[in-house]
């Protein structure tokens, strides 16, 4: 069992990170090397400055707000929560003064960020089962949502345990020690991360996150990077 835990928490993490980074780079190189479309793909009437409107479209999803307002609320909550969690994970690597403008414990949001994310993911999952989204969905779409849901669930569970149930065996310091050891290429698993009562949560969290990262470059998740240039095409 310990070997399996080790594989998930060390070599698999390295492999996932490598596939994630190299995969995205290759995808982008292929895209950038492809010739640009010879003509405009703009939709009219146009608004200027086009760049600013493209950024507006990319980050505020105005068309979703207009046509699917409920979905929009969940999407915005989801993306904000995702960003906060991303920042939360960055803070495990180092303290950033910028993010501490509003002083907080790691992770931000006292467990509610993870909760929001989980609820949003369940909403996305269930709305897919309804027609007409069901007919246009492919297994990849469910799989990604499921992977993300499991990742978030086990990740948040650790957070919830600490903040809501006064559970103290696995501390932020333990995560930090583990992550930093990975970064400096001297992998070390602190006792608490593998032997404490909640460690299996951490192991599962990392396992699903690894799968998610591995799948990322080959899936529709590339929309997170491509949305801006695509919206720019529509704005002209």
């Amino acid at each position: 069992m310990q070997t399996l835990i080790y594989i998930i928490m060390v070599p698999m993490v390295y492999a996932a990170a490598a596939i994630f980074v190299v995969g995205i780079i290759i995808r982008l190189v292929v895209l950038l090397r492809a010739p640009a479309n010879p003509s405009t793909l703009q939709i009219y009437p146009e608004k200027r400055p086009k760049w600013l409107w493209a950024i507006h479209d990319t980050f505020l999803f105005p068309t979703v707000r207009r046509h699917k307002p409920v979905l929009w609320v969940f999407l915005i909550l989801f993306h904000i929560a995702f960003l906060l969690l991303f920042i939360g994970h960055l803070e495990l690597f180092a303290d950033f003064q910028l993010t501490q403008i509003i002083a907080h414990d790691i992770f931000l949001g006292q467990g509610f960020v993870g909760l929001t994310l989980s609820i949003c993911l369940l909403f996305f999952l269930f709305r897919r089962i309804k027609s007409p989204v069901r007919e246009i969905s492919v297994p990849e779409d469910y799989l990604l949502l499921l992977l993300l849901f499991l990742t978030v669930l086990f990740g948040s569970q650790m957070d919830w345990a600490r903040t809501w149930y006064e559970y103290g065996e696995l501390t932020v310091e333990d995560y930090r020690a583990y992550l930093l050891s990975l970064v400096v290429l001297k992998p070390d698993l602190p006792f608490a991360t593998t032997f404490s009562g909640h460690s299996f949560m951490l192991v599962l969290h990392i396992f699903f996150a690894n799968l998610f990262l591995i799948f990322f470059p080959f899936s529709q998740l590339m929309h997170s990077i491509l949305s801006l240039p695509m919206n720019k095409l529509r704005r002209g």
Partner: protein
Amino acid sequence: MDEKTKTELLTLFKNKLNRAMRYYLDTCTRCGVCTKACHAYASTGQVRYTSAYRHELVRRLYKKYFKLQGKVWPAAGEAKVLEDMTIKELYDAAYSCTGCRRCMVYCPFGIDTQMIMSIAKLLLVGASTEPELLTMLADMSIEKGKSMDVFKESFLTGIKKLEGQVVEKWRSEAGETVIPIDVDGADLLYVALAGAHSIIPAAAVFNAAGEHWTLSFFEAVNFGAFVGDPTRTTLILDRIISEAKRLKVKEVCICECGTAFRVMKHLTGPQPFKVSSITEVQARYIREGRIRLDKSIVSDTVTYHDPCQIARNGGIIDEARYILHHLTDNYTEMTKEPKYNWCCGGGGGLVAMGEETLDFRMTSSSIKADQVRKTGAKILSTACENCHTQLGDLNDHYKLGVDVKFLSSMVADALVR
């Protein structure tokens, strides 16, 4: 399907994969925001007419042959092998899509369904399963470009016969040519359609504005674009471009044909002449005081259908309204925002295919008929040949009781000295 055909088709597919196309094929999250955008889905409720469903048919092939995911784990994205059945599905998807790009307005990423359908159409051409009629019409246009001398005489005689009707609308000064053709150094080359309705009113307005113009030998419509064949599209286009260059005109004015305008204006790259739609040109004449219109001619309520390729995809929106406000005080908008106007349901070659598509055109556009009815207008004006035909068919089929008119004819009928 034999291996040779498959390889040929996949080469055609590959040639289509420029950056924008790859973005579109890589990104759809199948979020379903676009479903209600398509008039065919909104009218029939059939999911296969949603834009995402249409692109997924092409995307499955893309995954299978051009993406690692489809090679390693085809089931994840339902990647699919190219076979005869696929060709049938592509036909259904491509020839039920008018390329109106209304769904592009809805999509959070702006995925262009018309562009993705251009792959489907090209594969159909490659497999010789495209609508024969469209290819035949495209080839006739190309042939006309090659052997102009054969057609020239009959064309000139035909045009001569129209002059009387032009003069009825606007009496030219003595000695002036009513329909000038082949004028070297003219300011404007007008590219019309084959019918007299596309030439007579336009000629009257040009003459009234004192334009130094000349009529093109060629008709504007590009059947190559309808059938999605880039080679034929270019050949058809090149006839007009070389005529414009030969005559050294400053401006090429495209008649009321949405596809012809968009192809010439936006899909040809930079040219030594300006490209305008006839709506733009007529609005300019009014603004500059070169023509004046009598508002008392039109007494009924008028509404305007924005042709997709001219408005949402071509940028000519305010000009039509400017003209209409000079034609009547009784104008009512069809939609608050023209980029959301429903497609008439006749674009993408569907109207050109005639009776064959009539049933589908009617059932897939009930939403358009409702929209027209809601305006309460008696006159339905538009600035595109396809839209005009389709709206006329809808008028008959749904008993809308409107009078479908070309905007340019309304201008010609209201000319005053």
